[in-house]
């Protein structure tokens, strides 16, 4: 068994209005940052996992994201592993 840190990135899906992202976009505009067309705010979840392999760790993280960590109606996710 090896230990892996797997990061699950959960983001509002494209096309779903994200009120916190929209408020942040207009704040950036007010600060004078030009050209920010859209801001979407998601979250990064770090999982410290024991697994036989990196593939297994990623696979399990994906299952967790589908079941609980992301809401598939409004959120998409991807998983990335960090080498132990």
């Amino acid at each position, binding site marked *: 068994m090896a230990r892996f840190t797997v990061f699950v990135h959960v983001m509002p899906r494209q096309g*779903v*209005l994200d009120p*916190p992202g929209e408020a942040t976009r207009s704040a950036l505009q007010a600060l004078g940052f030009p050209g920010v067309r859209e801001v979407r705010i998601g979250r990064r979840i770090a999982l410290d996992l024991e697994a036989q392999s990196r593939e297994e760790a990623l696979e399990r993280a994906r299952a967790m994201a589908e079941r*609980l960590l992301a809401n598939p*109606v409004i959120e998409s996710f991807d998983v990335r592993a960090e080498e132990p």
Partner: protein
Amino acid sequence: MSAATVGVITFPGTNCDRDVLHAINRAAGRDAGLEAVSVWHEETDLSGIDAVVIPGGFSYGDYLRSGAIAALSPVMQAVRERACQGMPVLGICNGFQILLEAGLLPGAMRRNRTLRFICRPVTVRVERTDTPFTLLYGPGEVLELPIAHFEGNYFAWPDELDALERRGQVALRYCGPRGEDARVHDIYNPNGAAGAVAGLTNPEGNVLGLMPHPERASESLLGSRDGLRMWLSLGRWLAARREGRPAVATRAGGSADGR
């Protein structure tokens, strides 16, 4: 005739459970033919329970997403099984969010478009009067009920929303004081909800989720009694079912609670 039993579920962080118990047992009282009892979230056996209310609050501190953790609790597995057999289930506010996360109702909640926690009375229009919770309301009747939430901005993809409308699953809709449709008059949509959805039912009609709090509008002292008929409807529906007759959606008029 003995009263039907309503299970009111408590999760860690639920805070409207006592209000619902009070509204059913005291405000609706014997007229409703209901007895509300407290059900802990670890309960797996709902035998002897005729209907379930999932009250509002902040189950599990709203961690991860509102309702996401509670949706996986043991009692929700039992609620899902019974709901599929036709048991009436009412989810209020966080209870609505839990029903969405549990997949018992379609869609999801986003933060309010104002990014503010909204706590005030709103007006909603009754779009369905054939559910166990709304049969004593008139079609299109306008109710004044309080809302208190940060995430009530309902979302469903446009094609899904169309399908929900076609199937008549929008049971309550935000509206103006004279019933003005908030889809047209956006000023009456408090949180940005798609389709101005305030309450949603499953295709069968036995599961209803709503953002407003009927338990906070069940006594004159609280400024509105418009929520009272939800409990009285449920009592009538359960009594009818027990007697094996259909719960006819009789229009009982403005003072249908008869008290």
